[in-house]
């Protein structure tokens, strides 16, 4: 008896979410757009930027150094400036992000075995990109210096051997795109679950639901299961696109990934139900979802690492289920994270799931009385 009641409710919820063509569009179009934007626009890496050069040296060595910048893939072209003032004006105008200033004694000092100095002027208005450019240029100059004296019999005293594990080319797409397996279903599930009760409220059918034989926990399950089905289905489709379309290899176990996703989505559903139990119209539900989703996204390590946040914000990040699922997804896709490390991230999500679902159930029980 209870089973037929529940399955009828689940079927009704799934129909309600997808029957309206406008609502269907609103559920399907944004994820597709985000997938596209993420794959091609979400990059912090710096490439294809012009680099400015102010060369006051007349020797050969400085021209050899500049030709190395020309060959570097990060830079699109070399723009030469005649004086310090022109170079400064170019940075002010944001014509170039950096100017490499080679002083007039560069070649002489280098030939004499002394230590010449190269000054790099950078635009701190975009300090993250400027730091990356600074790193590239520093590495090129340092390599140039050691190559220049390769002929001499005194070897370099020490050198840096730089290795990148898990994602050897430091490719942004490999690091960013798998994350969508969690963030896009999260957005969709929040919309479906968050709107569902609000819609019933607006249409006045919620009272009918309350006077039906359904118990509060049955209503919760009936609203939760469709969200879980849709969320997991979307996660599966995106996983396919990520692994087949973008050719990003899942190095860990698929089963563990979906175990984590299931716990994560249950926690998200709890949040959605809770929002839904507070609001009285779809408009309000949408505002509520936005107010919850933005911090959830930004305080999760999604766009910048959690460890950079101030310490008073860290507990909030730890309570956020998205933080943990992102660690799991990055770990399983790129690092082949062992199961016991994944488990460390699953239980905090399980705790949030239990807390949010019971809070929502409690709100519904209160409404019944």
């Amino acid at each position, binding site marked *: 008896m209870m089973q037929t009641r529940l399955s009828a409710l689940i079927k009704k919820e799934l129909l309600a979410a997808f029957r309206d063509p406008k609502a269907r569009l609103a559920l399907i179009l944004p994820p597709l757009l985000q997938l596209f934007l993420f794959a091609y626009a979400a990059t912090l*890496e710096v490439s294809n930027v012009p680099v400015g050069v102010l060369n006051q040296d007349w020797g050969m060595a400085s021209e050899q150094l500049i030709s190395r910048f020309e060959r570097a893939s990060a830079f699109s072209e070399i723009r030469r400036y005649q004086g310090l003032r022109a170079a400064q004006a170019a940075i002010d*105008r944001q014509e170039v992000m950096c100017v490499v200033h080679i002083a007039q004694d560069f070649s002489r000092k280098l030939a004499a075995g002394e230590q010449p100095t190269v000054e790099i002027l950078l635009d701190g208005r975009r300090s993250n990109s400027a730091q990356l450019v600074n790193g590239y240029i520093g590495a090129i100059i340092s390599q140039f210096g050691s190559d220049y004296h390769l002929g001499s019999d005194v070897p370099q005293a020490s*050198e840096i*051997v730089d290795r990148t594990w898990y994602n050897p080319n430091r490719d942004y797409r490999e*690091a960013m795109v798998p994350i969508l397996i969690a963030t896009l279903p999260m957005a969709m599930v929040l919309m479906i679950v968050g709107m569902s009760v609000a819609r019933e409220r607006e249409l006045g059918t919620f009272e009918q639901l309350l006077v039906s034989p359904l118990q509060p926990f049955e209503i919760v399950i009936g609203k939760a299961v469709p969200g879980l089905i849709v969320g997991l289905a979307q996660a599966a489709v995106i996983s396919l696109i990520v692994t087949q379309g973008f050719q990003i290899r899942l190095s860990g176990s698929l089963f563990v990934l979906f175990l984590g996703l299931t716990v994560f989505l249950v926690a998200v559903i709890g949040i959605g139900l809770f929002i839904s139990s507070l609001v009285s119209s779809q408009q309000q539900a949408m505002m509520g979802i936005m107010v919850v989703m933005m911090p959830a996204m930004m305080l999760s390590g999604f766009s910048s690492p959690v460890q950079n946040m101030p310490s008073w914000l860290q507990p909030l990040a730890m309570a956020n289920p998205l933080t943990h699922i992102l660690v799991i997804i990055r770990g399983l896709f790129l690092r082949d994270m062992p199961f016991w490390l994944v488990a460390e991230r699953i239980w905090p999500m399980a705790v949030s799931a239990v807390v949010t679902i019971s809070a929502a159930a409690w709100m519904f029980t209160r409404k019944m009385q």
Partner: protein
Amino acid sequence: MSATRPGRWRRIRALIIKETLQVVRDPSSFVVAFVLPALLLFLFGFGISFDATRVKVGLVIEEPTPETTWFLASLANTPFFDVRQSSDRRAFIDDLAAGRINGIIVLAGDFAERLARGDTAAIQVITDGSDPNTAGLVSGYVQGAWQSWRDQRALGSANVAPGQIAVNSRFWFNPELESRRFLVPGSISLIEMMIGSLLTALVVSREWERGTIEALLSTPVGIIEFIIGKVVSNFALGMCAMGICVLAALFVFNIPLRGSIFTLLGFTAIFLSVALSLGLLISTVARTQFLASQMAMLVAFLPGLYFSGFLFEIASMPAPLRAFAAIVPSKYYVQGLQTIFLAGDIGAVLLPASVVLAAMSLLLFALTARNTKQRLD
């Protein structure tokens, strides 16, 4: 014409009062006008940071000698590293896999021996590529620490090793390299975009949805007056939000304002007019509030987030996306904001940006006027 003018101004004033009351009373407008801006400013000011000031690294010293202790000290003395030490690299491999540390630096057992013998001693750096940005910063920091350690060693011994070039980097406008200084102006652009377009689209589409627009237009209120009423109240709201954002930027987040406040407000007024006309245009296309808010998110908010250049690097995107970024108004506004806040009133940046924004605003406004007329006929 002159006879109707006093009446017209009275009508417009009444409309503005009505609009303002409507925004203040409706909870969802209140959320868009006050809660979301505060949240965005807070998140970008505190939550997002690219400043890996204390990257966690594991330093593996396979055989401790005075040389390796010296190297450890030069790492620990910079504010950039949180160093843990071990004699075996296996101790750190699980930590790296779990994301608990950002990198491993290995000084092999023969490090001191090779240094003493005059062979090249390798310093191996292993970074976690699953966070490419932090990986890049870790390499950069290690490179810097290594250079200063090498320079100090060279000072100690008589001869400079050949081929060493000292690199002296100067970051203008933001020598402390705080990412907050470009993220907060960027988030102001998102806030202004949201108030300008999302709020305008919502309040105008509500009039269409409820049919009150027909009721309003059957009164002496003309379509132009109706639009002016909507625009003026939202414009005032946007400027108020701007004032609050500027105060928060200056006094909560300690961001310098190197340009003048008048330039900032004038430039913001131009951008706000673009955002408002975009919102009006959306409201004439979308018939319902739900659709209007979805469209505003897709047309105004997402491009403002991805293609304004404050979070993601436009130059690194593929060519079609770079071309698209050129028509995103937020891109010009962010450029101007970062300049006014961090660099000063630089005409070479601000004038072209203002001209482009003003042109966009005129175009969008003309489109709106045409669409509105068509819908009423």
